[in-house]
């Protein structure tokens, strides 16, 4: 097992900064997800850790060993890590068993030890009857399991997973997610999981690193990431947060403060050092707002659209006093209002996005 330390990593492609001063410290045995839209730099980061590309600045260490810097580059074959590729990258000219055994053969492990470990790895992923098949004859989920077995048979101290579920259908995803979680639990290996799917990241990871345009935006536990986004981009990206201009009316007390938003007052969560300001940004999620009970304070709005989500409606509404904003909220069946009708919306929770926040504190 090993720590993975990424320290101010920089990578340029021509004039484009694909990695801009990214620093992440992954604890021994931690499951870290790197989350971001395509082109955010997460794959570039993975290729740096694996050693497929050379770093332009900063350092990467696996355990205490410096593997990448502008001066040093340990080739991938000497980094002793494992990767599960998005395309699985199973060798079509070898059987399942040969695929899994490859890393052991390279490392000089001989039969019967090798055969035993291959059988154990296939057993672990539930593919013990498939040893002599060719990968081309397997289903997507089975290929993914072979890739996992191949990656883990050498017991690497660090495993990188590059969007491993992206090519699977929805049903298989859930069961493979479970498989990954079980694996992590059993082996205790440090895992770095690259994905653009936040549900996947939330379900699996101990911590999530959110990236955008080559920069690390926030590194935090899934719950903290959801409840206390560090900036507007994260707030918008995670859980479809709505970001609204707000005025902070009172100094924080027990993690809450009073704000004025869209002409109504509400009590929301905030950092203990939140200043009283007229320039704050409030992050609201659909579940933070709802239709006001009779007699409850609320802002008037007009329902614009209803879409049925199965068991509840997603409602889009435009506040009467600010036509530029669209709020979305969930409403139980039967629909309390139809499109075009007026409603009153109550704000029950929310988070004041800190003005500027250093990532270390957010972590």
């Amino acid at each position, binding site marked *: 097992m090993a720590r993975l330390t990424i320290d101010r990593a920089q990578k340029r492609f021509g004039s484009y900064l694909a990695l801009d001063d990214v620093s992440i410290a992954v604890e021994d045995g931690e499951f870290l997800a790197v989350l971001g839209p395509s082109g955010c730099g997460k794959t570039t980061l993975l290729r740096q850790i694996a050693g497929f590309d050379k770093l332009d600045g900063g350092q990467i260490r696996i355990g205490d060993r410096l593997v990448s810097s502008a*001066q040093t580059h*340990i080739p991938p*074959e*000497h980094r002793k890590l494992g*990767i599960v590729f998005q395309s699985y*990258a199973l060798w079509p000219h070898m059987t399942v068993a040969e695929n899994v055994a*490859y890393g052991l053969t*390279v490392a000089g492990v001989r039969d019967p030890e090798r055969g035993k470990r291959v059988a154990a790895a296939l057993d672990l992923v539930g593919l013990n009857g498939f040893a002599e098949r060719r990968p081309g004859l397997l289903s997507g989920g089975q290929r993914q399991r072979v890739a996992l077995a191949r990656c883990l048979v050498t017991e690497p101290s660090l495993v990188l997973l590059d969007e491993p579920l992206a090519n699977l259908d929805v049903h298989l995803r859930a069961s493979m997610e479970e498989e990954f979680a079980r694996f992590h639990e059993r082996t205790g290996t440090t895992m770095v999981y690259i994905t653009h799917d936040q549900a996947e990241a939330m379900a699996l990871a101990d911590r999530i690193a959110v990236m955008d345009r080559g920069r690390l935006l926030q590194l935090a536990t899934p719950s903290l990431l959801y409840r206390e986004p560090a900036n507007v981009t994260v707030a918008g990206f995670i859980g479809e947060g709505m970001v609204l201009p707000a005025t902070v009316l009172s100094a924080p007390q027990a993690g809450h403060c009073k704000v004025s938003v869209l002409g109504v007052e509400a009590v929301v969560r905030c950092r203990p050092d939140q200043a009283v300001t007229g320039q704050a940004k409030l992050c609201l999620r659909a579940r933070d707002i709802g239709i006001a009970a009779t007699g409850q304070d609320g802002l008037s709005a007009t329902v614009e659209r209803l879409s049925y989500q199965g068991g509840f409606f997603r409602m889009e509404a435009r506040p009467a006093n600010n036509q530029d904003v669209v709020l979305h909220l969930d409403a139980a069946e039967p629909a309390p209002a139809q499109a075009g009708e007026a409603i009153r919306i109550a704000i029950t929770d929310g988070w004041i996005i800190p003005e500027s926040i250093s990532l270390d504190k957010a972590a």
Partner: protein
Amino acid sequence: MSLADPATLRTRVEETGLLWGLVGLVALLSLLPIGRLIVEGLAPGGQLSATALGKVMASPATWTATWNSLTTAIAGTILATLIGGTVALLATLTDIRARNAFTFCFVLPLMIAPQVTALAWLQLFGPSSTLLKLIGMAPPLGSRNPLYSREGIILLLGLQYAPLVFLTLRAGLRALPKELIEAGLAAGASPLTVLRTVVLPLMTPPLVAGIALCFVSSLGNFGIPAFLGIPGNFLVLPTLIYQRLAGLGPGVLSEVAILSLLIGLIAMAGILLQDLMLRRRDFRITTTSSAARPFELGRWRRPVELGLWAFAILVLAMPFLGLLSTSLIPAFGVPLNARTATLANYAYVLFEHAASKRAFVNSFLMSAGAATLIVLICVPLGYFIVWKKSRALRLLNLAAELPYAMPGVVLAIAAILLFLKPLPVLNVSLYNTIWIIVFAYLARFLVLGLRPVISGYLQIDRTLEEAAQIAGAGLPRRLVTIIFPLVAPAAVAGALLVFLTAFNELTVSALLWSSGAETLGVVVFSFEQGGDSTYASALAAVTVVVTVGLMASTTLFAQRLPQGVLPWRD
């Protein structure tokens, strides 16, 4: 560089060692011979002198041959373009049936040795034509074979290289997005108007590329002018070089070096002209989509199909029937019938004639050896060119094209210059051995093996290699256990192209052969020159059977091949 651990250091040494080994090898095969030739042109025999240059320039034979080369190459190219272009349009854009079979037949002449084609056509016409005699239409004895002429050479060059234009144009047509054609039709244009105003203008680059290829090939062709021109003393540059060298020996090496530089310059001019023509306009196609739906020929479909097949039979089957019929008669001039038909010629060339038997072994071993070595070079070479994006090798990739783009005599003369004296240090002489031919094959056909391998690499997911790297495998192990098996189908296709081309070639070996190191092409040539047309035909017929058999055998592993690496397969 900071201190690296020994394992990392070893990896680095392995990779750079392999890279620079390849760089050296490709430079040795491509740049060295051409460089040596240029040195000889400037400083014959090692001294800066214009004597040889003056002598060559003052000789009227030089200019007659140059004029003949230019006229036959240009006219042959025009003929090839008309035939190949028309057939490509019909066979690609319309809804004719049995397209694959037709493509195979139409491309076949390209894979058959030019000297065999020439021999076959000679057997078809002329007063001694066995086939014409069979139907009582042979011209009177004593009349000249009409193919022994400038026009004969032009006709055969046109037929031999029409497939080159066909192949490049067809590749272009297949990449043409169907929207461009459909937009034209939707705008109300008739199919012919769309062809004239949309398709043909966009097809300029492949067409020009095909024409340039055709011109360079016609210019460098030795087999056809050797069989059709030498008897009537109609010389082109390659045959002039051959005659000088054969008649006067290596003493005239400086003069033939200048002649081969001259033909090299004409070839370069053709290639530069192609570049110039394509630079004037923007032909880039912006959209990509599936290939166009074929135009329906309607009631014209049958006549067009008949016409195409009739043409294929005329240029393919007829000459080979001529060849076959001559190979079956006991002596040239004897009519073929059930009583005269004999297999004695085959028995003679296969089992009796010493040089012919040797030539089979030589041609087979040299072609197979060259094909194997080229694959062994090309697999790591392609790896560095495509996946490692090595800049040094990209330039050498262009250099590797040079010996193939140049007419074969140029490389042959360069090889003589390189190996006439024993190799320094080793003090071994390759001259007058089969090894000088093997070297020339490696240099000339390297690019034939490299192209399929490169397209193979482009179609393989590189993560397959990365996965092996992550598993801890160094480059040598990855090459053997992962990369080679993955590019094997493409490499086999390349090896087959090299084998077939080398097996059928005459241009290089005509200048480099020596007693004991004959090739099949050389033996067919000397049989024909000695008047033994029956033996020549029998031997040629055997090579045709081997060639067609090997081409057809590729259907066996067709599914595993990357698209478009074998010219005769879709």
